[in-house]
């Protein structure tokens, strides 16, 4: 039995998911319009701009920053043999192009992948179409770029 199917590992994933979902609701980032009101910088001079998203992400980064420092003092996480830290470091074309395309999709909808899953709780009209497209896009992306750590690292050298 691999580490990732043992009970403490799965329980950690479950509690993390619960906290993440609660955070998306409490911060109201589950509401696409709330997200778009942050991205609407035209409203800064006009009035009505909503900076909430910036506070959400800064607070989350602050907590995670401490966790990363704590992690650096340890050999391994509590329930697996190693931290899965990305080893691919290069700024390459897929990173840049991917961020551009994601930025367009996010700006069109006010939805990024976390809230997309979170919204399943409230199941608004057309969510299914969005989710199917999200999975199809992700699958297409996996066919286009070299997937797997070893292959990407080999390309990087």
């Amino acid at each position: 039995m691999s580490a990732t199917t043992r009970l403490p590992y799965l329980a950690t994933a479950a509690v993390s998911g619960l906290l993440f979902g609660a955070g998306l609701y409490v911060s109201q980032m589950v509401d696409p319009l709330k997200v778009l009101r942050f991205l609407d910088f035209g409203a800064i001079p006009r009035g009505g701009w909503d900076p909430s998203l910036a506070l959400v992400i800064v607070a989350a980064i602050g907590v995670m920053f401490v966790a990363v420092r704590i992690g650096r003092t340890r050999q391994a996480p509590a329930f697996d043999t190693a931290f899965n830290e990305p080893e691919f470091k290069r700024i390459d074309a897929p990173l840049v192009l991917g961020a551009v395309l994601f930025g367009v999709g996010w700006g069109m909808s006010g939805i990024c992948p976390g809230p997309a899953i979170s919204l399943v709780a409230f199941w608004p009209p057309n969510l299914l179409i969005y989710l199917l497209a999200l999975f199809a896009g992700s699958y297409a992306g996996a066919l286009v770029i070299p997937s797997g750590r070893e292959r990407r690292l080999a390309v990087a050298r």
Partner: protein
Amino acid sequence: MDSFSPIPALAGGVLIGLASALLWLGNGRIAGISGIFGQLLPPARTVVWRFVFLAALVLGTLAAAWVVPGLGVGGPAGKPAELVSAPAAWGIPTPLWLAIAGLLTGFGTKIGNGCTSGHGVCGIARLSLRSFVAVGIFFSVAIITVAVTGIVA
């Protein structure tokens, strides 16, 4: 600034940070939602914990909506959740608009290895240069997209 909600924003951000911290220190995994669901697809590895995490994310949203009702959308006292439509003058049906947005987001986060959570929260906290670049680009492009579509008005 009528919709600015600093206290729920900070509280929700701390919850998201704690979720990410727990998954990192417990399982050594980055709480990047695009990566977690993207690898449910073939060639899939370690599907079980990913499914557990995503199901719990939905349940956590529902539970919070019952415990703290009336914060924005969803739950017993909230407005119904609603997705946005294309700008009226563009004449694009809503399902098509959302399908294009979903395809771009799925494809972009896959080839760019992350979204708002993986790059935005975890990557910045790890001081990853790739994440700083990705976050700078996708925030800028999203802000430009909203300006071009005028979708908020």
